């Protein structure tokens, strides 16, 4: 074997074969990693429609037949968009099975009558990932308003987010 061939084989072993072995190791060790529970996808809300209508911007939620929300998740953080309602979420977070979000009327709707003068809502819920379909159960309440009504709700996942990523 010539010197240049030896050099090539050595370089190939060090720069290609060794890293590939490293990759195998990474894939094995990564199996034990735990990522936040999945809440991404579309959810349908089941709640008392009268109480829902009493929430800021809640009328469309209570009257629509497909009232619900869509969650777009990135790790423990997510954004949430309500269907049929001008509400948007500035931030939401999942810690283990506990889901918390602050819901604000979107910019154009903050001053609309019935939207609580731009008042925010809090969503606090617990995820049941083992239910079929997965469900969220918790309360929707108006921030800084002890006299306002809070609404107990249950939400079920519409699209099987389990299709995500292949698990």
């Amino acid at each position: 074997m010539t010197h240049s061939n030896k050099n090539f084989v050595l370089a190939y072993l060090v720069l290609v074969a060794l890293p590939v072995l490293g990759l195998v190791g990474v894939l094995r060790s990564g199996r034990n990693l735990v990522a936040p529970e999945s809440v991404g996808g579309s959810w349908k809300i089941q709640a008392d429609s009268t109480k829902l209508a009493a929430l800021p911007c809640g009328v469309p939620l209570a009257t629509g037949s497909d009232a619900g929300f869509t969650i777009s998740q990135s790790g423990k953080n997510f954004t949430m968009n309500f269907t049929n309602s001008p509400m948007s979420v500035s931030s939401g977070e999942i810690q283990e099975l506990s889901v918390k979000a602050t819901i604000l009327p979107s910019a154009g709707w903050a001053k609309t009558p019935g939207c609580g003068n731009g008042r925010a809502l809090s969503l606090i819920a617990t995820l049941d990932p083992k239910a079929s379909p997965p469900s969220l159960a918790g309360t929707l309440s108006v921030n800084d308003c002890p006299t306002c009504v809070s609404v107990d709700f249950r939400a079920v996942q519409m699209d099987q987010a389990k299709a995500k990523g292949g698990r």
Partner: protein
Amino acid sequence: MLNMFTLVLQIAVVLAVCRLVGTLFLKIHQPRVVGEMFAGIMLGPSLLGLIAPQLSSFVFPPSSLGFLNALSQIGVIVFMFLVGLGINPKELKSQGHAAVLTSHVSITAPFVLASFLAIYLYPRLSDSSVPFSSFALFMGASMSITAFPVLARILTERDMLQSRLGTVAIACAAVDDVTGWCILAYIVLLIRSAHTGNPIWLTVGGLIAFALIMIYGMQRLLRHFETVYHKRAALTDNAMALMLLLALVSALCTEWLGIHLLFGSFLMGAIMPKEQKFVRYVLDRFEPIVVTLLLPLFFAFTGLRTNIGLVRGREMWMYCGLIILVATTGKLGGSMLASWWTGMPAREAAGLGTLMNTRGLMELVILNIGLDIKVISPALFSMMVLMALTTTFMTSPVLEVICPQKMLRSETEAATREQLTVGQQLGLNPVGD
């Protein structure tokens, strides 16, 4: 329902903004395509949606984006056919050991570094519905890709195609893209087969059979295109339509087999005849409509899915910085180390690394697939788009510092003189006559 007014308005706005920003980028010595990528981001929630939300929702109402997406996907299918057509992995053979090693290291180094980074990012930016292996492999594949078309454009604009650096870079990028797409096909296969419940061996078997039919059966038939072209110095509209039809049928086959439309069109392009004049002729016929009209729609659609607002807070920007650092270290550093090890001068090796670090449009195509199959989250998608933009944007200025055009021009002239001398000795005409 399709609203033609909205769709035509969207196309008009996208075309105008892409042309304008592309032209501005040409003035700062960046390829037009980089400007168009930036234009796409500008039209999305990261800029237009932020400063003029009502205008944004008037021009790009969420309910209308399906049609824009469909048009842009047609463009990407044809574009991938053209990418496959332009790639000639045989070029690597003529480059010897150095190029083979550089090419392989430029895949493994970013791939492995990205998978290490995946250990850190998985608990932070993914969720329990994505298996770690899919996440890590996708990160690896997306970081190891090189934008062959953008690279070719940069080399042409800098008059580097005939230089040693240029030829090695093109050969390595060709191999990188073929390998990258094979790995990505495997990842999509894993994810989709788990979703559909079809046994993976059935899909793999089908794909191998399809690839064999294409390579050993279809490739022979495709040579007729080249033969006809050489007889008539042109191809009829029917022949061009047939070529397009074959690309679409191939795309449908790979989609039906369980991977993705784009793999089929890429494969069809890859097995097309590779004679230079024929390739140039086909590219010239298809490129104007794809590059001028359809790709900007893809950039806009990608921009509409990219929300830089999701990358908020010091922690998220740190992840983004890490992604850019790892991608650059793996690709630039890996290629540079390998080529330097095999005897390339350090400055040239650094230039090669810089060229290989160009991800551009190919990265966006891969990232969109990743977001579609939900192996990456929207925030990670936005970070990776920023990485693609940064690594592509930095190529031209960094290259100018490492390998100034003056230096390369003298090398190219020397190479051309050498070719002419050898040609004269062998009694051949100069290339291109």
